[in-house]
C-alpha cells in the first residue's frame, strides 16, 4: 500500500493536538504549538542531550552509588561493584535486574539513539519498520533506568539503624539520575517522522531510474 505523508500532500499536523493545517501554517490555532513539517533542529538537539547524557554516565559508574556502614566497617560500592557483590551473596536475579536497568539499558539506549539519528542522515540498512520499533522501545524502556536511583533512595531511607547498620547515597546517584533524564530528553527531541521520509525519497529516486 502506498501511504502518502502529510508533507507530500502540502499539509502539516500539530504534533501536540494532531490537528491538520496547510503546510505554510506557522502556529497551531487550537493548542498554540509552533508548527514545523519536520523539526529543523531535531537532530542537533538529539545530539546535544545525547552528549551530556553520555558524559554524566561516566562518573555515575566510577563514583560510589551507596555507602554501607555496619558495626565493623564502612564500604563504598559502585553500580557494577554492588551487582557483583550481590552475585557473591547468591542474589543473581536481583543483580541481573540492576545490571539490566543500570548498564544494559542505558548503554543500549546510547547506541540506539545514535544509530537512529545517523540513520536519518544517511541511507540505512535497517528498514523503517525496524527503526520505528527501535524508537518505540527506546521511548518506552528508557524511563526504567531510573529504578536504581529509587532503590538507592528506598535503601538509604529505610536502613538507618543507628550503629548497627546504615546505608547512605553516594554522588553517583545524582550523575546517574542526570544521565537518565538527559537521555530521555534526547529521545524526545528525535522527530520520528524523519524515519519514514528517507523511505519516501528513496522510492522516488528509484522510480526515476
Amino acid at each position: 500500500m502506498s501511504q502518502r505523508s502529510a508533507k507530500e500532500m502540502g499539509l502539516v499536523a500539530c504534533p501536540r493536538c494532531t490537528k491538520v493545517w496547510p503546510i505554510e501554517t506557522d502556529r497551531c490555532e487550537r493548542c498554540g504549538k509552533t508548527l514545523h513539517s519536520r523539526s529543523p533542529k531535531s537532530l542537533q538537539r538529539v545530539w546535544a542531550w545525547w552528549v551530556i547524557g553520555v558524559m554524566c554516565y561516566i562518573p555515575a559508574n566510577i563514583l560510589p552509588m551507596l555507602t554501607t556502614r555496619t558495626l565493623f566497617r564502612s564500604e563504598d560500592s559502585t553500580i557494577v561493584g554492588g551487582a557483583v557483590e550481590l552475585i557473591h551473596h547468591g542474589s543473581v536475579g536481583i543483580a541481573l535486574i540492576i545490571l539490566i536497568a543500570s548498564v544494559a539499558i542505558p548503554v543500549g539506549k546510547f547506541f540506539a539513539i545514535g544509530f537512529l539519528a545517523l540513520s536519518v542522515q544517511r541511507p540505512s540498512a535497517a528498514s523503517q519498520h525496524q527503526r520505528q520499533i527501535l524508537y518505540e522501545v527506546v521511548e518506552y524502556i528508557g524511563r526504567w533506568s531510573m529504578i536504581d536511583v529509587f532503590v538507592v533512595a528506598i535503601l538509604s531511607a529505610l536502613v538507618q539503624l543507628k550503629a548497627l547498620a546504615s546505608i547512605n547515597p553516594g554522588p553517583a546517584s545524582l550523575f546517574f539520575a542526570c544521565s537518565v533524564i538527559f537521555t530521555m530528553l534526547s529521545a524526545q527531541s528525535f522527530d520520528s517522522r524523519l524515519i519514514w521520509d528517507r523511505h519516501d525519497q528513496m522510492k522516488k529516486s528509484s522510480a526515476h531510474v
Partner: protein
Amino acid sequence: MTSLRPDISLDDLIVCPTCDAVYSLDVPEEGDRAVCARCNTVLITNRRNAAFRVIALSLTVVILIIASAVFPFLRIDAVGLNNSVSILDAAFAFSEGLLSLLALVTAALIFAIPLCRAMLTIYVLAPIALQLSPRKHAKQAFRLSEALRPWSMAEIFAIGCAVALIKVADLAEVSFGPAFWMFSVLVVLVVATDNFMCRWSIWKALDTS
C-alpha cells in the same frame, strides 16, 4: 482507516503523529481503536463512558497518592532497632549537599507529577463528561498534563521497592505499611487511566472555535 480521496476538507483528515501518514477520518465503533497502518500508533480509542471512567480513576489516584505519602510505607526491624519510612522519606533520603537536588527530583517523579497529572485530568475532563463548555485554561492544563506524562514514574518506583526489599532481606526483617498496599493499587490505576484516555477526542472537545 480508509485511503485518501483528494477532495476532502482538512477536518476530515487525521495524520499519524509518529510517522506523518495521512488518512481520511473514520471514527471507530465503540470499543474499537483506529491504528496507523504504517507504524501501529493508536490514533483514536473509542471506549464507552471513557471520560467518566478516567475521572473516577483520577479521583482515586489523587486520594491514594496523598494517603500513601502520609502513611508509613515500609518498616525495618533488626535486633531491637526499627525504622519506618513514608514515600516522601524515601525521596528525602538524598539530603547531603548537592544530593538534595536529587531529593526534589525524586519527590517530583514519584509524588508531585503523578498527583499533578491526575488533578489536571479531572479539571480538563469533568466539563467534557458533563457536556459543558471547557473550563478556562483547559487547553493549557491538558498540554501540561501531556508534557508531564513520561516523567510520572510511580510504577518504576514500585518495582524499585521490590528490588530494595530483596536487597535488605538478609540484613533485617522488612514489613509493609498500609501505604505500600495503597501504592500498589495506585500503580495499576495510573496505567489503566492512560489506556482509557483518547487524546484525539479530548483535543477535539477542547476546540471550541
